[in-house]
């Protein structure tokens, strides 16, 4: 990498760290961008920029230190080395370097952040921000410099497995250590400067820049998906030019794509938001019509698109679908009824195992070899009963206690399947293998070798699950769930049998999870206790929280982003390179989400109200003021207390 190319390097950095925000058509990403924009557009009051050298040195030092820590951590987690093979833009940029360089960029950007206080004008951004960014970036880059010196002179391989000469070589770009020290200070400074400079750009231009970077980022990172699509839709002639032979965008095409997307962004400025606001403002029949139309359109795309997709993408879609199904089930339990269930995988396991036992000829003891659809009826009944049995003792607890107990039950179920005691029914650690595919009437058998069919099957069940949660949410039962979530004691006092209602949520969740389990066993063809680790429960919960608790579109978007892009517990995602680091990324994403957007990617109306109570209360207060009601409603002045 040479100096002249570095600005481009810096400019493309937000790519990877924003990737998890969604594929380009996920509504989540624009939403986040909008929020950020909305927060910063109303800079009506601006005081002159701060002088260049009047920096908040303490802040710069602390941000720089965080940058140092983050970069050294990432370098020693072996991420740069592993991802170095993955070229993004052909001769210039590999994912490995991006995984380090985004740190000084973000640090440089954050260091110029000003807290907005009402009535106090913000300082206009200027050289001050850039200079601060540079200093911060240099400090952060210095961390890598330091690391490369240490790498050469000390051997810490014993505790740190990734402490290797290869890493040193990578950090030095194949040159001497002195070069490494110099280049990382320089790169850090440049990245920090770019980060600081992002504060200078006005929001409209920033939007264009962000769109350009995101487009190039997505197209390069999601290469496998694009190639797969190209094969199906017959535009290989284009991708052959766009992508280099051994992966990565050709740099000239990267420029063309950036220019093109920038142009599109400029032309469509604000249109998307306008359209969304227009749809949101519709009411009554026209709203219902629009919604119906959108659903039909989405459904049609989902049915037609897989026809043009290869095995790889269909497999991916099927996996995402399985998790959507699980997440929808957990969403009923956690999102609607507010029961924090950390052992949800139990129902997935019971669904899988009961389907396996009922359909597989090789099942050790019981093998009725039912057709899949018939077995499904029993699976639903069995899982529902298991939900009832697990739920009955658990449900009387509340909050943290309940979470811990469900965690325990999740493990108990797995250990039962693993145990010698039940081994002659469930095969113990050998599991049950050679499970036949799911036969659907005359339409043939759905098994793992035909991922497209699996996807269609999953799609059908997702539609069913969505319908179930949508209808239940708007019923007497759904309202009771919400009341229990809000305040269990009061719900009980208002005549709701909270035990029954919570059990019902547990059972509905269990049944939705069993759908996923039954499809899973038919798809994979075998079930082992190891497929149902506690990690699966956690991942599903993260999907629900990340997507937006209680929100059906949110849960779907959450699965698409986390499972589709990053990969599930055992399934590779689009970014198969990241599969080793996905738990790290899950964690980072979850923390970022809780800080920046606690209501989730696509929040339910209710949940976002809950987290923005103050703003909404204020709006409603203003509205009240406008009301014609003469009386004041400020009822805080108590009348003098009269006693006898």
């Amino acid at each position, binding site marked *: 990498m040479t100096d002249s190319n570095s600005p481009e390097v810096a400019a493309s950095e937000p790519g990877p760290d924003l990737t998890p925000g969604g594929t380009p058509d996920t509504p989540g990403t624009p939403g986040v961008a909008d929020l950020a924009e909305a927060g910063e557009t109303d800079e009506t009051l601006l005081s002159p920029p701060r002088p260049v050298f009047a920096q908040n040195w303490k802040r710069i030092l602390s941000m720089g230190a965080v940058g140092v820590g983050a970069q050294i951590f990432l370098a020693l987690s072996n991420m740069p080395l592993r991802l170095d093979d993955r070229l993004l833009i052909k001769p210039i940029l590999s994912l490995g370097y991006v995984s380090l360089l985004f740190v000084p960029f973000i640090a440089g950007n954050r260091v110029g952040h000003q807290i907005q206080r009402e009535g106090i004008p913000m300082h206009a951004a200027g050289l001050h921000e850039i200079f601060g960014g540079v200093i911060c970036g240099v400090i952060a880059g210095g961390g890598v410099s330091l690391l490369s010196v240490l790498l050469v002179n000390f051997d810490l391989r014993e505790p740190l497995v990734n402490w290797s000469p290869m890493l040193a070589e990578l950090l030095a770009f194949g040159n001497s250590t002195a070069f490494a020290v110099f280049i990382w200070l320089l790169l850090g400074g440049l990245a920090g400067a770019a980060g600081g400079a992002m504060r200078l750009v006005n929001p409209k231009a920033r939007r264009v820049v962000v769109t350009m970077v995101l487009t190039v980022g997505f197209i390069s990172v999601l290469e496998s998906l694009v190639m797969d699509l190209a094969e199906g839709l017959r535009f290989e002639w284009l991708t052959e030019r766009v992508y280099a032979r051994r992966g990565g965008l050709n740099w000239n095409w990267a420029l063309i794509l950036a220019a093109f997307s920038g142009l599109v962004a400029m032309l469509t400025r604000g249109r998307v938001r306008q359209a969304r606001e227009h749809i949101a403002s519709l009411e009554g029949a026209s709203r219902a019509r629009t919604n119906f139309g959108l659903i039909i359109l989405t459904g049609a795309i989902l049915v037609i698109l897989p026809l043009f997709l290869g095995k790889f993408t269909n497999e991916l879609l099927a996996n995402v679908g399985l998790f959507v199904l699980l997440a929808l089930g957990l969403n009923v339990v956690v999102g609607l009824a507010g029961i924090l269930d950390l052992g949800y995988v139990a129902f997935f396991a019971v669904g899988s195992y009961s389907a396996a036992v009922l359909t597989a000829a090789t099942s050790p003891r019981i093998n009725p070899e039912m057709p899949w659809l018939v077995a499904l009826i029993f699976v639903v009944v069995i899982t529902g009963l298991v939900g009832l049995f697990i739920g009955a003792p658990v449900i009387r607890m509340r909050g943290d206690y309940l979470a811990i107990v469900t965690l325990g039950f999740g493990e108990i179920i797995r250990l039962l399947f693993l145990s010698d005691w039940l081994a002659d029914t469930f095969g113990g650690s050998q599991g049950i293998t050679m499970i036949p595919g799911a036969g659907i009437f005359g339409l043939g058998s759905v098994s793992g070798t035909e991922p497209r069919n699996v996807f269609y099957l999953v799609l059908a069940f997702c539609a069913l699950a969505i*319908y*179930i949660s949508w*209808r*239940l949410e*708007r*019923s*007497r*039962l*759904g*309202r*009771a769930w*919400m*009341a229990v979530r*809000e*305040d269990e*004691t*009061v*719900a*009980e*006092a*208002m*005549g*709701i*049998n*909270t035990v029954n209602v919570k059990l*019902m949520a547990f059972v*509905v969740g269990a049944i939705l999870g069993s759908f996923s389990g039954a499809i899973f066993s038919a798809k994979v063809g075998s079930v082992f206790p190891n497929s149902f680790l506690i990690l699966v429960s956690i991942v599903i919960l993260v999907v629900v929280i990340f997507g937006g608790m209680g929100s059906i579109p949110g849960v779907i978007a959450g699965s698409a982003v986390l499972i589709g892009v990053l990969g599930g517990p055992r399934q590779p995602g689009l970014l198969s390179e990241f599969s080793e680091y996905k738990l790290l990324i899950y964690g980072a994403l979850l923390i970022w989400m809780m800080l920046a957007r606690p209501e989730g990617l696509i929040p339910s109306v*209710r949940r976002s*109200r*809950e987290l923005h*109570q103050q703003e*909404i*209360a204020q*709006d*409603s*207060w203003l*509205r*009240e003021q406008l009301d014609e*009601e003469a*009386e*004041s*409603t*400020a*009822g*805080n*002045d*108590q*009348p003098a*207390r*009269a*006693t*006898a």
Partner: protein
Amino acid sequence: MTDTMSHPSTPNANAVNGTAALLETRKLSVDFGGLHALDGLDFEVREGEIVSVIGPNGAGKTTLFNAITATIELSSGDILFEGASMMGLDPNKVTARGIARTFQNVRLFANMTVLENVMVSQHCRTRQHAFGALFYTPAFRREEAEIRERAEKILSFFGNRLVGYRFDQPAFTLSYANRRRLEIARAMATEPKLILLDEPVAGMNPVESAELTKLVGRLRDEWGFAIVVIEHHMDVVREVSDRVVVLDHGTKIAEGEYEEVSNDPQVIEAYLGHGNEPS
């Protein structure tokens, strides 16, 4: 679905006639460790009566409500409602029998809308379950419409305060006085025979307080509920109550009409302590 909403005062033929007690507690005791929060209390409410329960802080007023609604366990004694014992019932069963309450520190379902708050409180009077909701049966649709209609009717009882656009506002956006009103509306929605109001005017200004006082009267006159009110504001107590019960240290120290009770030396002593001249 019951139809008691329109005739809530219709006595339950086999249990009560005339002025027989609707609610009766017998030797009711509640202990918290060594503290006797309620100590052998006999208390009764008749059909269509408004009873005020007063007493200094810690006298056991709210404990009495909690005991009646089964949110705490009794140490001894019995509670009869319409002549039948309520021992061992869950709180939701008590509500189903016809006792509703409000809370001293307003406890709404803050993130549900105003209308939903009232709709969900009809839970024990409605029966459609998952099946009806999933298949969108005619019975389900009919019941949903009825629930909504009833909720709107109840909310319109409070004038124009909780209607219109307010239906769809989350409960936490309401002003303090409106939250108190919504709590009453929610209690009404459970179709009770007896409503327990725990300090309904606490924190209200004099205008609102006077209005709510009238409202308590209307609740009895128009809807036929028997009402028990815990209240500290004596002007409110004087205005609403047919009968006043004074508690101190978990026992009843006086009972009767307001004038009577307010001149009772024991009551004055409980409020003001020894050695003070009656005011």
